[in-house]
């Protein structure tokens, strides 16, 4: 990764500037102080530091991820426009286009596979495993909203009927949405049961 030279009045100010420009904290880049900088009203001299990022920068991750995703879509003969939403963690890419249901697959399985392959390739290129999320026409976003609503509705049912309820089998990221939605619920707790593809969330009444 490329080095960056920064001048400022003091080393501290230069370091702050580096943090701002790179978008990462000072523990994530290596700093070499070239010139300390002297204070003085008339003959003050600026500080010069050289910094080198130790982690991949967001702009690099987005660039590589978009390139990989574009290549994959091209090879699968799927047309879609890729948009990156900036400043989000994990870094999120959304594919927009017509007729992309085929890329989502049953219960989002194809999308999960696509995301996994992109992560693998990007991780290999940048030599770091990075949080990266791929969505198609806002599918995951909608799914998250409806799962959260479903979770709250079922929690009410569990409370009223005083009986546990089991949801349909779901992939790990969707189960996680349910668990998180009810993590602070006063009346119910959640667990997962079953193995592999059959794993599902159970909502139980909290024992007081």
């Amino acid at each position: 990764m490329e080095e960056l030279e920064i001048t400022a009045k003091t080393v501290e100010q230069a370091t702050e500037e580096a943090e701002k420009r790179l978008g990462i904290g000072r523990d994530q880049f290596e700093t070499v102080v070239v010139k300390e900088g002297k204070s003085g009203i008339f003959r003050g001299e600026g500080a010069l530091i050289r910094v080198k990022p130790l982690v991949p920068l967001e702009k690099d991750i987005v660039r590589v991820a978009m390139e990989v995703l574009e290549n994959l879509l091209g090879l699968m003969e799927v047309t879609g426009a890729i948009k990156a939403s900036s400043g989000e963690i994990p870094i999120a890419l959304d594919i927009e286009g017509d007729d992309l249901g085929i890329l989502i697959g049953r219960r989002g399985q194809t999308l999960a596979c696509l995301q996994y392959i992109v992560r693998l390739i990007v991780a290999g290129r940048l030599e770091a495993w990075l949080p990266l999320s791929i969505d198609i026409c806002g599918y995951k976003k909608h799914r998250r909203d409806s799962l959260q609503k479903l979770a709250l509705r079922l929690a009410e049912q569990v409370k009223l009927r005083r009986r546990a309820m089991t949801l349909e089998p779901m992939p790990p990221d969707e189960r996680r949405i349910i668990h998180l939605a009810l993590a602070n619920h006063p009346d119910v707790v959640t667990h997962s049961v079953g193995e592999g593809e059959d794993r599902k969330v159970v909502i139980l009444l909290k024992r007081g």
Partner: protein
Amino acid sequence: MKELVEYIVKSIVAEPDKVNITEENSDMGLLIKLEVAPEDKGRVIGRQGRVAEAIRTLLRVKAARADTRVRLEIL
């Protein structure tokens, strides 16, 4: 079909030069045979076959578009 497998596999193995992919047509559809360096076999299969399964899933997307069937065999 081959190009899709080739792109993915060459991007994730340690020795891309040792990747060898052949295609065979049969009445069952297309059969893709993938050969990699022995040390890379684990990378293309993955824990519990996760990587191989993901490659197969993406292949199926393309096959469905072309209205054919495709199988991927790792040698």
